[in-house]
């Protein structure tokens, strides 16, 4: 069960990847760092920290840290969303607009650069200490499930309330995103852009708007993922490593498929816990570090497009 929950969170991060990939053909490596950045910003705003306080203190010899107010969680989330939209606009304006039509692998490397930049930027802006994030999500063991399963099966399942919430939010998010992409006007425009830039342009779709929208959506998903992980284990650097875990999830599920991201996340989440439980003791443990990658690697050798991916057709 724990694996299942971890899988849900992997899937949540993976969703951000799928979304951007479907809409712009960019494989966004910086998704995890965006989640970190969003969580950092959220904590910073909530606690009323002064942005760049370390830099300001170092340059001017002052010692400012906090504005001295606390922003309620809801308002802070909105403000963070504004920041993420601003970030999306900047990213589009200064990076990806110039890279239109480049090889996918060049775009991929640009997002690695972006990830590094954001990592340094987030740390300079808000400091690199581990922060506690609490937006009022319930935590602790869910006693109801414990009781029910104890009565039914004779032993209780220990499930964190937060994991339940994460699952719930992930499901909501997926439904919302699928509905958005399939039925709304902008969602359709988004898919059109992904199919063919020029054709989309010629039927009057505003490319810049769509791209900013896509990056904002990715920022939104990153924010949700950041809140979940941040509440669970504190806002710290390791948050961005989750992005690396989301990659095999994606490959397993297929880069272009939203259900694929979810199924892949569940398979990997459960698989790595099981593998650690069964095989781990024999080889010294800590197999979680690589199991996902090796599984995805072996899987891809037999089915290069992933579980639900579109068939790869190549032409000279």
């Amino acid at each position: 069960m724990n694996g299942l929950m971890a899988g849900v969170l992997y899937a949540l991060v993976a969703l951000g990847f799928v979304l951007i990939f479907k809409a712009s053909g960019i494989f966004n490596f910086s998704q995890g760092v965006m989640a970190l950045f969003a969580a950092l910003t959220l904590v910073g705003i909530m606690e009323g920290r002064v942005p760049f306080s370390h830099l300001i203190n170092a340059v001017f010899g002052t010692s400012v840290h906090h504005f001295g107010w606390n922003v309620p969680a809801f308002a802070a989330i909105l403000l963070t969303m504004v920041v993420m939209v601003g970030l999306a606009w900047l990213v589009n304006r200064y990076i990806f607009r110039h890279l239109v039509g480049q090889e996918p692998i060049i775009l991929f490397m640009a997002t690695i650069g972006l990830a590094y930049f954001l990592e340094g930027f987030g740390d300079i802006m808000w400091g690199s200490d581990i922060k506690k994030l609490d937006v009022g999500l319930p935590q602790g063991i869910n006693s109801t499930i414990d009781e029910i399963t104890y009565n039914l099966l004779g032993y209780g399942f220990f499930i964190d309330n937060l994991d339940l919430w994460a699952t719930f939010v992930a499901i909501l998010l997926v439904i919302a995103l699928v509905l958005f992409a399939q039925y709304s006007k902008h969602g359709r425009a988004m898919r059109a852009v992904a199919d063919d830039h020029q054709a989309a342009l010629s039927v009057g779709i505003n490319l810049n708007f769509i791209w900013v929208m896509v990056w904002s959506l990715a920022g939104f998903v990153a924010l949700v993922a950041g809140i979940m992980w941040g509440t669970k284990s504190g806002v710290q650097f390791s948050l961005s490593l989750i992005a690396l875990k989301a990659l095999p999830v994606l490959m397993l599920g297929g880069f272009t498929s939203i259900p694929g991201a979810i199924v892949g996340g569940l398979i990997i989440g459960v698989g790595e816990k099981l593998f650690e439980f069964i095989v781990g003791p024999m080889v010294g443990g800590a197999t979680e570090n690589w199991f996902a990658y090796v599984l995805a690697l072996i899987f891809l050798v037999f089915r290069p497009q992933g579980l639900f991916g579109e068939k790869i057709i190549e032409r000279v």
Partner: protein
Amino acid sequence: MFYREAGDFKTSYPEDGQTFPIKLDRFGFYAVVFIGFVIIPFVINDYWVNSVFLPFLIYAIAAIGLNILVGYCGQVSLGTGGFMAVGAYSCYKFMTGLDIWIGGVQYALPPINIFFSVILAGLVTALVGLLFGLPSLRIKGFYLAVATLAAQFFLVWLLNKWAWAYNYSASGQISAPERSMFGVPVTGSNTEPWAVYLFCLVFLTVLALIARNLTRGSIGRKWMAIRDMDIAAEIIGVDPLKAKLSAFAVSSFFIGISGALFFSVYLGAVEVGEVFGINKSFLLLFMVIIGGLGSIFGAFAGAAFLVLLPVFLKNTLVGGLGWPTDLAAHLEFMIVGGLIVTFLVLEPHGLAQLWRVIKEKLRLWPFPH
């Protein structure tokens, strides 16, 4: 005016096919080799060797290796750190005497000379690289990039858990015993700056020449054909199996040697998770991108740039302005990330292309045409 290609006539095929066909390039190369081998060893001290020259030389080897794979053959790899770790650990095993158990009987090799240990480490890494290169036949692009992450995490985990690899030492570290070349210690704690410098420089020079000639020759052209479009290359008769796997093997050989030197000569003691983590893979990839994809000179330029940048930032920000170290480290992240993006947007061919532009300018300057 200052960079001349004209008036340099060849009368035989060997002359035409030499490594540096343009006279000015050739003399430039001789001058650099002369300065590197004859002048620098006499003037360097401990600080310069440890903070600038050794990392530069060793990263340059790895960057050339990675450039062969990414820049010439077009297979993006994020497993460089893992391969460097394999090089380091196998060098350690060869240095201290390899022991193998076959059917319950232990066969122990005597410790091998450090020079040959490093080369053997390269060969072992080439084999491992070959193994992890196999998926490249089925998957490509960023699928492959992610698949090579499997190599990164699996190898680091394996070397961390497999006690045989670090001779069952209690700390899980490997540390290089003192070994000498021609009676001069090059590993361990009693080394002279010039000795370790020259030791690495010899490797770099020979490997760079090999790389330059490989990439000019038929195999290099096959790699580039695969990079530009693998299906088209297959149709005109390039065997993708051979081309891709040879790129993986050669690249891993270079990276393995670099890892072996990094451990034995530069650091002396290594804990695999710390030194050869995913960040090392990214660092090397950045060197290749900033330096210039598909250029041997670019590998040098990128390595020099990313070795010098932190030293420079540290000296100016921490030493000069008195900023805290962590702030300088974050700023470094920002600058490196920003530079990657800037280079990809403005100059996708990196520093090497800037150098080509400068040469072009020097050819005409000061005349307009």
